C-alpha cells in the first residue's frame, strides 16, 4: 500500500517561495498526485494535481521527478493568507483507496 511522508511544519516569511515535499512510495503507474490546502474550521481545498514532470496553475506549481516517489508543491511569493495546512493525496493501492499525508502546517510571518 502507498504511504506518504511530509514535514510536520514549515515557517516562512512573506514574499518568499515555499517548497513542501511529500514522499510517496508504491504509487501505481497511472496514479495522480494531488495537493490540498486547509484553513482552520474549513474543509480541505484542491490546489493542484499532477502525474509527472511539472504542472503550474495560478496559485502553485507541482514538481514530480521521473521516479514519481515524491512530489514538491511550490508556492511562489507567499503571503500571510497562505498560512494553512497542506496535504498531499495519493491513491492507496487497493481499489479506490485514498491516502492523505499527515499534513504540513505552513506558518507565514510578516
Amino acid at each position, binding site marked *: 500500500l502507498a504511504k506518504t511522508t511530509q514535514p510536520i511544519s514549515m515557517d516562512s516569511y512573506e514574499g518568499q517561495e515555499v517548497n513542501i515535499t511529500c514522499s510517496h512510495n508504491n504509487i501505481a503507474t497511472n496514479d495522480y498526485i494531488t495537493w490540498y490546502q486547509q484553513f482552520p474550521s474549513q474543509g480541505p481545498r484542491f490546489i493542484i494535481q499532477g502525474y509527472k514532470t511539472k504542472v503550474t496553475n495560478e496559485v502553485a506549481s507541482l514538481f514530480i521527478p521521473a521516479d514519481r516517489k515524491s512530489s514538491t508543491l511550490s508556492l511562489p511569493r507567499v503571503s500571510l493568507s497562505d498560512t494553512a495546512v497542506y496535504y498531499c*493525496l495519493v491513491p492507496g493501492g487497493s481499489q*479506490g*483507496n485514498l491516502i492523505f499525508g*499527515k499534513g504540513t502546517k505552513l506558518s507565514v510571518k510578516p
Partner: protein
Amino acid sequence: DTAVSQTPKYLVTQMGNDKSIKCEQNLGHDTMYWYKQDSKKFLKIMFSYNNKELIINETVPNRFSPKSPDKAHLNLHINSLELGDSAVYFCASSATSGSNYEQYFGPGTRLTVT
C-alpha cells in the same frame, strides 16, 4: 450556492446514542466521500459512493453506515456512539472515482461525544 453542504455543523451527544450527518452536493458529481479528521488533523477516508454503489469501505466499525438516497446525497449514520468517535467529519464529492481525484469538501461537522 454552496457546492457541498453538511448538516449539522456541530453535534454534541452522549455515548450510546445514534446520530446522523447529512451531506448534499449540487455539482452533479458521481462520487461522494466521507472523511474523519481527528484531533491531530489526520484525514482518513471512511467511505465513498459512486452512482449509489459503495466502492471504498475502509476499516471502520460497522456502527458507521453510509446511506445514499440519490446521487446528490450521502448521509452518515452512526450507531452506539463512543468517545473515540469525537472528531470532525467531512463530506466530499468528485466528478469521477478514477485517477482524477479533485475533490470538493464540505465545511465539516464537529461531533463531540460525552
